[in-house]
């Protein structure tokens, strides 16, 4: 287990400023303040740090996109919405080392020329928001963060904002919309947030873990960061592992760490000594791996990509050999059907349909063409939506069906039974498309079923 980001996380007193300071907190911020902002950006760029929120975009590059004009207010938004199923690493960081998170936010803000920063946390993290707010009060009382940060003349105000329960608020433009007091309907890009972000001002959105890494990098240098990890995957990664393992939890690993070693070592092996059936390596939005595919992989961006999946958020979900993959997929599909914001048709309708077809398959009411139908619905969502949730919803459906096809085929009716399938009252009524009522998306809740007019 690596000890770069989390080296102080096991000390409960680390939440208190004095303890954190003794462990080196805010030295990175101090170092940053002694440099012009461009040099901070350059240092982060040199470290090779990539976004830890899911997409893996190079952080230094993202920061360099900010070119504020006279009179503009630049914003740094720290994304602590963490709602990707199977992901709870930011939860761990905020709970155990809130000053590291605040330091990262301060450094990010300074680097992009922002004097305003928000930390947007999912509503369910209200108790963590208190931990973070207490740390912020201490840092402000000590003049580390405030109108004159550490006597440098740099002025920074950090505000913690809680959400109210919606996965889409983790998507960067959904987050911005939510923070503005709107429904969290993601925005069409371009323009990108770097140009028109929060309140139309230049904005950077970064994940909690990304900013925490930035704090360490400024304290210890880009080279020390690159001593960890491999090639294009520099540094360490927090992996939150859950599901059918003996020791679920958050572990920091060197990027490039062998996946099976992690599974057998840190995660304690499969629960109850069972066999491994499958792994989702980076939250439900990335394709699943069979045990065979997973065996030779290492935990880093390139290795995951070579296997057709992604490291994503590092939310690793492990399936034992007693799992019904269609049942598991239904659970995941229902998540996307519930969380689709309803702004664009392919995602709003498609996520509902995928869940509904899976449900009828599992209820023994499937039709012979249902697997093809599921894949086709996915094809019609992918690449046709405003934000990444649409594409994300397709990945599990497609990969589960392709890789565990016999389990799905076993649910298909004999041709004779198929003819006998009748609508049980939840199906699409004649002349009307769209998922049944229980798949209501957020837009239906207000505007009435989007399909009612058809």
């Amino acid at each position, binding site marked *: 287990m690596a000890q770069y980001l989390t080296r102080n996380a096991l000390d409960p007193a680390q939440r208190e400023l004095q303890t954190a300071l003794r462990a080196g907190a805010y030295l990175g911020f101090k170092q940053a303040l002694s440099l012009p902002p461009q040099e901070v950006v350059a240092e982060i760029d040199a470290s090779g740090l990539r976004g830890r929120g899911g997409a893996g975009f190079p952080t230094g590059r993202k920061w360099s996109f900010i070119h504020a004009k006279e009179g503009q207010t630049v914003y740094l938004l720290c994304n602590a919405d*963490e*709602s*990707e*199923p*199977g*992901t*709870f690493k*930011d*939860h761990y960081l905020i709970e155990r080392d809130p000053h590291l998170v605040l330091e990262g936010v301060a450094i990010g803000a300074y680097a992009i020329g922002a004097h305003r920063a928000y930390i947007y946390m*999912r*509503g*369910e*993290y*209200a*108790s963590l928001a208190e931990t973070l707010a207490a740390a912020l009060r201490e840092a402000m009382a000590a003049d580390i963060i405030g109108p004159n940060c550490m006597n440098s003349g740099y002025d920074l105000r950090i*505000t913690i*904002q*809680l*959400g*109210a*329960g*919606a*996965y889409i608020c983790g998507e960067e433009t959904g987050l911005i919309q*939510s*923070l*503005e*007091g*709107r*429904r*969290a309907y993601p925005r069409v890009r371009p323009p990108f947030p770097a140009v028109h972000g929060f*309140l139309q001002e230049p904005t950077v959105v970064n994940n909690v873990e990304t900013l925490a890494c930035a704090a360490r990098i400024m304290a210890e240098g880009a080279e020390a960061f690159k001593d960890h990890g491999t090639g294009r995957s520099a540094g360490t990664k927090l992996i*939150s*592992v*859950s*599901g*059918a393992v003996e020791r*679920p*939890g*958050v572990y920091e690993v060197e990027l490039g760490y062998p996946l099976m070693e992690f599974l057998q070592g840190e995660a304690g092996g499969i629960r109850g000594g069972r066999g491994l059936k499958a792994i989702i390596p980076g939250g*439900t939005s990335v394709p699943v791996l069979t045990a065979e595919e997973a065996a030779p992989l290492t935990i880093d961006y390139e290795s995951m990509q070579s296997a057709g999946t992604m490291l994503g958020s590092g*939310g690793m*979900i*492990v*399936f*034992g050999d007693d*799992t019904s993959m269609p049942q*598991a997929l239904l*659970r*995941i599909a229902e*998540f996307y059907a*519930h*969380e689709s*914001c309803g702004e664009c048709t392919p995602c709003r309708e498609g996520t509902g349909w995928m869940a509904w077809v899976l449900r009828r398959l599992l209820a023994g009411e499937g039709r012979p063409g249902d697997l093809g139908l599921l894949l086709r619905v996915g094809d019609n969502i992918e690449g046709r939506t405003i934000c990444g949730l649409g594409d994300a919803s397709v990945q599990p459906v497609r990969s589960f069906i392709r890789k565990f096809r016999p389990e799905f085929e076993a649910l298909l009716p004999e041709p004779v039974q198929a003819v006998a399938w009748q609508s049980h009252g939840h199906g699409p009524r004649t002349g009307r498309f769209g998922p049944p009522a229980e798949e209501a998306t*957020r837009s239906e*809740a*207000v505007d009435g079923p989007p399909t009612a007019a058809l």
Partner: protein
Amino acid sequence: MLSKDALREIEAARAEEDSPRHALLTALRVTQGERRQVGPEEITYIADLLGLSPALVQGVARFYDQISATPTGQHVLSLCRGISCYLCGADEVAAAVGELLGIRPGETTADGRFTLRLVECVGDCDRAPAAMVDDRFVGPVAAVAIDNLTKM
């Protein structure tokens, strides 16, 4: 309608930015916390307070799962139905809890103390099956423990 503390919190959010809309999310949260619902009356009240149209406030309110249109019980018991918790027996626990409380998800106990909710991943998957009582993480849960919890 709201306490002084609540109004102060909303005022603080309003002071953050020039846009009056910006305080809406906080206003909804605070109102839900005190009134246990954001129904028509609360919507009108918030709209007046922030100088926004009631339709706009309602549109935003109904977007969020934690803002409820009808009153919840004194406490909200949220059981995670997410994939990791599912793999750790969440469905069995949920069924047992429902039976213990004598209600289905979405319903409130007759004494008005608990509203039961099934929710998506709450970001506490290493304590699966995860559950929350209001803002507190209480997982991993066994039905028995929940029974004790609700008797407290």
